[in-house]
């Protein structure tokens, strides 16, 4: 959706509809110290090795088989579970929104069906707009901040991993859409649209959803870090160096679809509010904001600002935003042709189904450059680095 709304902690609502199906769909940026010329010679091998390592596609199952108690630990502890099990490092934890774990998650608020789906899918990319992209730095606008993030030179190679909480998050959303549909009637909440179901913030239905959503958020943070570790191992294999030698650390990782209890200054008073970011990122002052472009086009790293705190509840954009529906895109474009055209432009793309390439074709989206000009102009986040894709993996 691309929207931010905040609701009073006491008198407001919590809406599962306003968080959506892919809870903590989000993006991690990972850096390397490799240059474009070093990677370009091996790009085909790299993309195909990554494709073997990262399970892609709608119902893809992972290589990781969790026990029920391990899953509960993932849901409560998020990335701390991953690091304990040698996926990612303490350094990764520092570079994630919420340090990769929202406190107060409760696995008991998640249905058995959601857990069943979660057991098999940790460490999987999924389909749709999810992707893993290999990128090269094309422009650096804010040298000081970019250096701080370890992004120092043009042509430096970065990675971007965009995915979410998979079937588990989807099931949590479906379960609570039903429960909040009932809550709308029970508490006589006036909603202008059936899809915008909600429950009073302090009601059982509201708080149960919040606890379940946090668990799905933690699953998703963990999902991205597990895959990050596999990406590192693939690079080790292809480039014959350790990932530490290649400086493959997390630049920053954040959520796109989430509800957070935050304190904001409203009419000169501090107030606790439930901020709903639906297709939006957090953009607190001096915090990185990763804006994932469309397949085949630029992505940006920006910086959050004080103005964002004043104007947009500390939030900014998450991507390009569709300009055409998925169905219309499939009718208008052919996946195999897009793939060939991208290769001509120096981008190697691989997908489990070529239809996905048509669905996600850049012409089905708004121009990301104009989007960045808009947020930069409004001051809610400022441009730091621009990257261009050289390799794309889609579900």
């Amino acid at each position, binding site marked *: *959706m*691309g*929207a*931010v*709304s*905040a*609701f*009073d902690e006491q*008198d*407001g*609502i919590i*809406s599962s*509809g*306003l968080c*959506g*199906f*892919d809870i903590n*769909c989000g993006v991690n940026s990972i850096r390397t110290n490799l240059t474009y010329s070093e990677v370009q010679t091996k790009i085909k091998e790299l993309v195909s090795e990554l494709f073997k390592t990262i399970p892609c596609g709608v119902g893809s199952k992972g290589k990781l088989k969790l026990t029920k108690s391990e899953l509960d630990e993932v849901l409560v502890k998020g990335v701390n579970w991953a690091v304990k099990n040698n996926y990612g490092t303490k350094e990764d934890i520092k570079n994630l929104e919420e340090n990769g774990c929202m406190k107060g998650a409760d696995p008991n608020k998640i249905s058995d069906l959601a857990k069943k789906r979660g057991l098999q899918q940790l460490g999987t990319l*999924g389909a*749709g*707009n999810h992707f893993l992209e290999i990128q090269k730095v094309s422009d650096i606008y804010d040298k000081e901040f970019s250096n701080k993030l370890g992004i120092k030179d043009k042509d430096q190679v970065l990675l971007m991993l965009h995915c*979410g*909480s*998979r*079937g588990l*998050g989807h099931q949590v959303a479906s379960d609570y859409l039903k429960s909040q549909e009932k809550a709308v009637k029970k508490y006589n*909440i*006036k*909603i*202008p*649209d059936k*899809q*915008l179901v909600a429950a009073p*913030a302090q009601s059982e239905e509201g708080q149960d959803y919040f606890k379940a959503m946090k668990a799905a958020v933690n699953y998703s943070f963990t999902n991205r870090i597990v895959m990050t570790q596999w990406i590192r191992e693939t690079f080790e294999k292809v480039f014959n160096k350790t990932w530490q030698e290649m400086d493959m650390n997390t630049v920053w990782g954040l959520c796109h*679809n989430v509800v957070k209890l935050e304190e904001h200054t*409203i009419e000169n008073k501090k*107030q606790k*509010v439930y901020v709903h970011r*639906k*297709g*939006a990122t957090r953009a607190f002052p001096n915090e990185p904001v990763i804006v994932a472009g469309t397949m085949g086009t630029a992505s940006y790293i920006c910086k959050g600002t004080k103005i964002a705190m004043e*104007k*947009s*509840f500390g939030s900014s*954009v998450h*991507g390009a*935003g*569709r*300009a055409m529906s*998925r169905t219309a895109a499939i009718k208008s474009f052919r996946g195999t042709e897009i793939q060939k055209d991208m290769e001509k432009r120096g981008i190697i793309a691989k997908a489990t189904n070529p239809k996905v390439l048509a669905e996600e074709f850049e012409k089905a989206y*708004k121009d990301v450059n*104009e*989007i960045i*000009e*808009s*947020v930069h*102009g*409004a001051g*809610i986040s400022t441009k730091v680095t621009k990257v261009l894709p050289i390799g794309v993996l889609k*579900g």
Partner: protein
Amino acid sequence: MKQNLKKLNEYEWELDKSTRPGMNVNAKIIANSSILKAIEDDAVQQLTNVACLPGVIEPVIGLPDMHWGYFNRSY
């Protein structure tokens, strides 16, 4: 709905709560004029739906990547 947007500056547009019955607060869209053209009227309508929810704090924000649909189909 879009015709009711009031330009605040080059990058911010406001939709007054009087535009539609039920809106509790104003809505604001952050976009330059070229992006604003690409935003569907339905998406703006959806933003006003959010502004109707109880306890909502002014304003509800539409970002320049806003598009129609509450839900992301991929999972």
